[in-house]
């Protein structure tokens, strides 16, 4: 295979298992090289997944804490003080702690869970397995990518234990709160650690993204042309391209921020008076400049989060409907369109910052254009399900749930994309509801679908189905019960980021509703712990996998042994003869990609 020829060409330490035929001999691996500094993409994927889970629990717990404050602003919880110490004096979360919790919840969920935890896991796991490669283009860079992510996590975690607390100026880290240490307690050491952590995270994302692109374009097995790739790979490819082109822009924004913070420059700062410090000498800077640089990443970032989920959902819907995906080329085209448009809409996050209204109208147009490829995708998912022979596995349930959430959240995007409506809706709970449904929960559903579907390949065991169904129904019902009411609150003008709404005459009416949301949030959080139990219990005690291809799927990962070693296939890498979606063709339930095209087959 050209793939092996490439692996042999450079004498890296990771290639010694790249041999095709004499693979049976036992390669000696120590605990360290197998589980810690592993260069096997499958192990790195699991490392990303479990680290992501750790952050998901922590980030979710933070939301439970601040929902306690929002739902029960007058109550005290003595156990909170024993847990959080001075941040919950008298059992009441302090305003500083509240803002720190909201900020860290956002940063952690967006970057650590839904970027690293989602595309880190599934790009690593699925790309080599589904394109037919022994490993990534550079297993070493791949390992570095994980460890940079790990280091970013350690730094972020440490920021929670400094005296002045973690950064508390919102996950977007707008200056001046992020640029001036005197602006708030969280802007001191907490912000230093935040920016170091994010810089490490950018490096991790870039190393990963470079590898994913190089692997997909260069290491496909014989016969695997680009148009035979499963849609998961296409989605992960566009995700990586988005990341590689937009993260450096965020990085340059951070560099200017570091200079403003530490070296007295005035890129973002102008005419500022800080209470207790006095007037600052900085002149001529513009905080809007930071917003441009931030959102040039920030908007592609939401597609970095969403596209992997879309890809996995396409694959899982097709496998479990026993039907080819509807409109394969249209799916690729719409992914491509979304990837292009992702770079052209960033200013819709800035409609009310004093942006030129004429410029705003162009961004409205471009933003609303995203509805076209999104609608194509939704149409194709529904037509894939249409008259399918549907198997409601937990993975399938979550995939269908993803489509539901994507529709609900996508529709409110059309509201928010209008600069005129945005004057009323910006910075309200309407925005919170929109992006949590369409980007947050929907992508979590894509991730759950992926975990339920590929768990047998990852660990050679099944997850428990009953727990899976409980997990699904409580989570989807809870997601709608949490975020649906927020639309009403937002339409009534209730702003985001406030500490206590019960003291506002206009928002007093929502006290009961907020309590309801908080209660549901806690129940949903508890059910995620049930999922974690299912996950870890099943790794060790789950029902064992006895067949290679439990779902009857066509893609290459199911041709590997139940527990594939480093190198994935014991012998030759299989050759591919057809696309990944020959389900229900010519009376066959499914025809794997490795099956040669027969003479009696209908059109191919």
């Amino acid at each position, binding site marked *: 295979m050209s793939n092996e020829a490439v692996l042999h060409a450079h004498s890296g330490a990771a290639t010694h298992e790249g041999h095709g035929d004499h693979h049976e001999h036992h390669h000696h691996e120590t605990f360290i090289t197998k589980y810690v500094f592993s260069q096997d993409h499958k192990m790195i994927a699991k490392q990303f997944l479990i680290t992501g889970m750790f952050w998901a629990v922590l980030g979710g717990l933070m939301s439970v804490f601040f929902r306690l404050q929002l739902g029960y602003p007058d109550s005290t919880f003595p156990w909170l003080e024993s847990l959080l110490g001075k941040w919950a004096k008298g059992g009441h979360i302090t305003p500083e702690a509240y803002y720190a919790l909201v900020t860290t919840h956002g940063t952690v969920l967006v970057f650590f869970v839904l970027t690293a935890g989602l595309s880190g896991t599934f790009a690593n796991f699925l790309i080599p397995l589904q394109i037919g490669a022994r490993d990534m283009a550079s297993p070493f860079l791949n390992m570095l990518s994980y460890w940079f992510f790990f280091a970013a996590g350690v730094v972020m975690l440490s920021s929670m234990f400094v005296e002045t607390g973690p950064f508390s100026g919102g996950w977007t880290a707008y200056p001046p709160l992020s640029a001036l240490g005197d602006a708030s307690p969280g802007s001191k050491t907490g912000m230093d650690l935040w920016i170091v952590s994010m810089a490490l995270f950018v490096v991790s994302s870039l190393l990963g993204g470079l590898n994913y692109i190089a692997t997909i374009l*260069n290491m496909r097995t*014989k016969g695997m042309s680009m148009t035979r790739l499963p849609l998961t790979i296409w989605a992960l490819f566009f995700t990586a391209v988005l990341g*590689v082109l937009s*993260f450096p822009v965020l990085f*340059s924004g951070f560099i200017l921020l570091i200079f403003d913070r530490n070296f007295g*420059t005035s890129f973002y700062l102008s005419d500022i008076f800080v209470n207790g410090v006095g007037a600052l000498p900085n002149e001529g800077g513009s905080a809007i400049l930071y917003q441009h640089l931030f959102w040039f990443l920030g908007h592609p970032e939401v597609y970095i989060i969403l596209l992997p989920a879309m890809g996995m959902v396409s694959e899982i819907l097709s496998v479990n409907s026993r039907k080819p995906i509807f409109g394969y080329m249209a799916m690729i085209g719409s992914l491509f369109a979304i990837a292009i448009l992702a770079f052209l809409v960033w200013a819709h996050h800035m409609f009310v910052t004093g942006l030129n209204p004429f410029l705003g109208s162009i961004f409205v147009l471009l933003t609303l254009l995203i509805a076209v490829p999104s609608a194509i995708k939704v149409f194709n998912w529904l037509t894939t399900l249409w008259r399918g022979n549907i198997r409601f596995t937990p993975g399938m349930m979550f995939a269908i749930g993803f489509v539901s959430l994507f529709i609900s959240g996508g529709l409110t995007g059309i509201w928010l994309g209008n600069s005129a409506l945005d004057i009323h809706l910006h910075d309200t709970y309407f925005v919170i509801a929109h992006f949590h449904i369409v980007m947050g929960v929907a992508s979590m559903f894509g991730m759950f679908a992926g975990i339920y579907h590929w768990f047998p390949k990852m660990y050679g065991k099944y997850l428990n189905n009953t727990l899976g169904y409980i997990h699904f129904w409580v989570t989807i019902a809870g997601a709608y019960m949490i975020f649906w009411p927020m639309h009403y609150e937002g339409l009534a003008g209730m702003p985001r980021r406030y500490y206590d709404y019960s003291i506002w005459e206009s928002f007093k009416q929502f006290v009961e509703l907020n309590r309801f949301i908080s209660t549901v949030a806690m129940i949903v959080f508890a059910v995620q712990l049930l999922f974690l139990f299912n996950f870890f219990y099943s790794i060790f005690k789950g029902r064992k996998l006895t067949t290679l291809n439990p779902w009857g799927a066509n893609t290459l990962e199911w041709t590997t042994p139940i527990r594939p070693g480093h190198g994935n296939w014991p012998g030759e890498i299989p050759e591919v003869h057809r696309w990944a979606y020959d389900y229900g063709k010519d009376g066959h339930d499914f025809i794997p990609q490795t099956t040669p095209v027969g003479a009696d087959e209908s059109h191919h």
Partner: protein
Amino acid sequence: MTTVQTREPQKIHPHKFTLWVGMGSIVMMFAALTSAYIVKKNQSSWLEFELPRIFWYSTFVILASSVTIQLAIKAFKAREMNRYRNLVTITAILGVLFLVMQGLGFQSLELKNIALTGAKSNSAASFLFVITFLHMLHVLGGVIALLVIFFKAYRQKVKNYSAMPIELAGTYWHFVDAIWIYLFIFYNWIG
């Protein structure tokens, strides 16, 4: 599968491909910074000043180093190892010289009372400093890569006949050269 089948049209080496994608990513960073520069320049209180004269000479130095590394790659492929080592050494020295000259350029601005950082600084000078400094870091990375390759060339035990490392370093070196040419044109005539 036979070897005949596996010799498909020569594909680009994955590492080289990764480098190209990585360079695209670096381009995005400089594109972001220079467009921020343009946005900022069109706002109030922008300080106009002459670019240090030494930047002209440093441009010449980095151009010369691109020539020497190209010759080094040629020498490696011809297995003229002495010539190769000399050329790599010259390239690395030119790289360090470039860094020193950029530093001197900064110094000359400071001497003219144009603060690059600190409370008295204007964004015009700060931008010049930050962007140029980031470029210097990228050149430094190239110098380090050359040093690693240079010492590998002296290893007696392991003989390496693969031209891939030096080709990768060469591509990167031309790339940072091109970035500086872009920045130089940008500072002088666009920004």
